[in-house]
């Protein structure tokens, strides 16, 4: 995050030195894009917060921990696809799962779908690229995530 802040400051400064007008146009364009997506984003985040509150950590641990193999991977793929979790929560959550005895291939599927597949962010994604592209990307990522899990199972 600090890196992002430093990069942004440097980029703005360099851009400003070269061309003030263009810098302002660029920043304004960025702010406009941000405000354009903000209402949808707020709605998605409230929905995700409600969903997360309904399925606390202990429930996720129970769902993934009790089962192993194919059923565990399937459960991880589905939960990971639906859930939206902040990045700084995802890895600690994975650590909790690991400590509770969830196998690594199931955790790999969970993390990968969490990162790459977003059912709940589909409305936002479709705004940028259209439904067709959004559905293909999510579908293929889902398959890819399961492949990652199966390969992890083979290697570990």
């Amino acid at each position, binding site marked *: 995050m600090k890196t992002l802040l430093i990069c942004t400051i440097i980029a703005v400064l360099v851009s400003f030195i070269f061309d003030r007008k263009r810098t302002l146009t*660029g920043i304004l364009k960025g702010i406009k894009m941000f405000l354009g997506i903000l209402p949808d984003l707020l709605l998605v985040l409230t929905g995700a917060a409600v969903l997360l509150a309904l399925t606390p950590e202990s429930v996720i641990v129970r769902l993934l921990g009790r089962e192993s193999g194919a059923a565990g991977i399937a459960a991880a793929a589905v939960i990971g696809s639906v859930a939206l979790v902040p*990045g700084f929560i995802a890895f600690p959550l994975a650590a909790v799962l690991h400590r509770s005895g969830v196998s690594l291939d199931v955790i790999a599927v969970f993390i990968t779908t969490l990162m790459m597949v977003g059912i709940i962010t589909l409305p936002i994604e479709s705004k940028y690229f259209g439904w067709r592209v959004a559905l293909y990307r999510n579908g293929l990522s889902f398959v890819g995530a399961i492949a990652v899990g199966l390969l992890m199972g083979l290697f570990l």
Partner: protein
Amino acid sequence: MPLKNVVKYSIATVFVSGMLLSFPLGFESGIATGRHFRDFVQEMAAFLPLMFILIGLLDAWLPRSVIEKHVGGGSGFWGSVWVILLAMLQAGPLYGAFPVAQILWKKGAVFGTFSSIWEHL
């Protein structure tokens, strides 16, 4: 502001008020929802404003020809390598990647080369 956005903001406001009210009322599910929402807003506030400034600058400076040459049609294998390497630098939430991808797309990148790869941390 378009009516659609007014409606969206209103719904979000109702939900957030409900979360805030849950704290003094001691409504457990509402409090849990509020805590998750706070985490989300924290992550969003940390990444998105900066990212959108960078995206705006990218849009203003990056010439179409550069994108087309490196990750456009016919860039093939090396186009994919480029995008994977760049995408690994990206941090932040999934929804932060969409606008970046869209800018690249509009400037002539091939969708397949960056679509699903971006989201890795």
